[in-house]
């Protein structure tokens, strides 16, 4: 699983736009780009969900 973050302007922080399932980084890129196409983003990045280090949760 990959977490997808994007922003529409550099003035705003990257925010979470969704997740995609792919075992391959290339496919994850394609999936993120084609599923979360609702805006013309200036930046989009993906992270493996299991790379997240959770330091707080309520």
């Amino acid at each position, binding site marked *: 699983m990959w977490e997808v973050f994007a922003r529409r302007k550099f003035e705003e922080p990257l925010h979470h736009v969704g997740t995609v399932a792919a075992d391959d980084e290339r496919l994850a*890129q394609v999936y993120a780009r084609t599923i979360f196409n609702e805006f013309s983003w200036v930046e989009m990045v993906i992270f493996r969900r299991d790379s997240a280090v959770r330091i707080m949760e309520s």
Partner: protein
Amino acid sequence: MALEADAAPAALIRLVAALADNKYFLGRRYAGWCTSAPTLESAVASAAMAQDEIGHARSLYPLLRDLAGDSPQTEPETRTEFDAMPALQEPFSGWEDFVAANFLLDTAVTVMLEAARTSSHQALAQRARRMLEEEPLHWLHAEGWVQRMADGPPGMRRALAGALRRATPSALGWFDHAAPDLVASSMLDAGAQDLRMRFRGRVNPPLADSGLEPV
């Protein structure tokens, strides 16, 4: 510019027609699998790639009309003499055919467009550059799936190898559209033999990485 003032050479008309038809057919074939892809993510990607190809076809048919003159044969809705690759004539019979077309046929068309990037025919060059912006995503999808299927169980790997073998003649034959006249007039920057080499240079390394036969 002098070139464009003359009657368009037959080889250019044939090339533009074949580019338009192959984009159109790729678009239809991709769309045909956007409701049957093996993952929801790939279903979305198939629909997106289908739209890219259809968009490219929509920009190429008007160019064909400009070159060949207005006729039912220059409109996709009324055209009957399509010049699409044999492997695109029928719907894909399985996802392995989709992946093989995505990897080989889509890439073969892309290699041709790259050869037209600096074409002396400005209208073609301009369109080629714009279309090429959307192709890296298709390549990522194709490469990702080739590896995924090659790394899968033996049956899946065999099916992919078979589909690649079936699509290869279409991909290699396609480069015959790069006629010597087009190279001589700088409408393309390389001929059929060179383009086949470029194509192999593109697709063979990932095939080798996945332990598949080169094309």
